[in-house]
């Protein structure tokens, strides 16, 4: 029972907070340098020109908002759905770039084009995070979360 709780609810909390922190950290440089991030998106040659800047403007903010809400434990499942969907998109983009042999930086954590080149490890990390996100989505029970705190005080009964 204890092991089950450890591997379920408690591990899901670790994964949720880890993913939250990863997404917050990943967003900061992109928010600071939207122009460089737009160029980074363009390097993948996957997004139509008309959508590149819109994506460069919105995506980091989605990352930071979801990251913060995951750490706080608010609307957890909805946030995990966004994060997992983003990770699937990132994985598809990375696989596509690797298959095409593009010699580019992934743009995951820094917008510096001279930063670490994309490798298979970039892909493996995203797959690991997706696994963590799926685990948390199924098993998270709002441990150490604002949602649980609010529930205790009877302020909300949200389940998303």
């Amino acid at each position, binding site marked *: 029972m204890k092991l089950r709780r450890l591997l379920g609810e408690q591990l899901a909390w670790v994964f949720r907070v880890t993913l939250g922190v990863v997404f917050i950290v990943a967003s900061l440089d992109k928010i600071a340098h939207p*122009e460089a991030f*737009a*160029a980074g998106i363009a390097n993948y040659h996957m997004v139509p*020109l008309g959508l*590149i*800047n819109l994506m460069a403007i919105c995506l980091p903010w989605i990352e930071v908002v979801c990251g913060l809400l995951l750490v706080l434990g608010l609307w957890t*499942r*909805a946030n995990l*759905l966004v994060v997992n969907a983003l990770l699937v998109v990132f994985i598809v983009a990375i696989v596509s770039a690797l298959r095409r042999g593009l010699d580019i930086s992934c743009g995951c954590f820094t917008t510096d084009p001279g930063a670490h080149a994309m490798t298979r490890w970039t892909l493996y990390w995203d797959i690991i995070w997706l696994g963590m996100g799926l685990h948390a989505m199924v098993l998270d029970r709002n441990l150490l979360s604002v949602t649980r705190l609010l529930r205790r005080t009877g302020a909300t009964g949200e389940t998303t």
Partner: protein
Amino acid sequence: MTRLPLLLSVPLGAVLISAAASGIGLAVNAARSGGIPVVAPFPYQQDCPEKLSVPEGPTVGAEQAARLLHAQGVLFIDARPAEAFAAGHIDGARSIPFSFISPPGPGTAAELKKHGHLIVYCDSPGDKLAGLLAASLRDLGLRRVKVLRGGWEAFTRAKKKTGAGP
């Protein structure tokens, strides 16, 4: 209050969170000084600048440019990043850092039109930044736009040689 089923409330929540975060991003972008246009006005080619082909156009040699310093109707345009401009630039030059994402627009072109001759310079190999900025200025209808051959470095050498300018 009736609760929505999870299968509906979770995706709906996800859409609302994404929309709210995007709204924040768009508002911040509109308010900040370093914001970018929502739609990219120019194709991106920033990944491989060394492979970039710079459109051909008229050029001017460094010594001739040094003699034109402070000449009436001549404006030097610095295509380098703002930090490089701040560290040192040709006297009287205007800084227009070249960027594929935010190239100069019609407003800048209208301001530059009053100058008879524009000499664009940078410090990148092959004068690429200057060549690209000059090309985008020509696309905006500006004529008499020339690239300073050898850029900032050649100009400073030529200025010492000719003793032109301050």
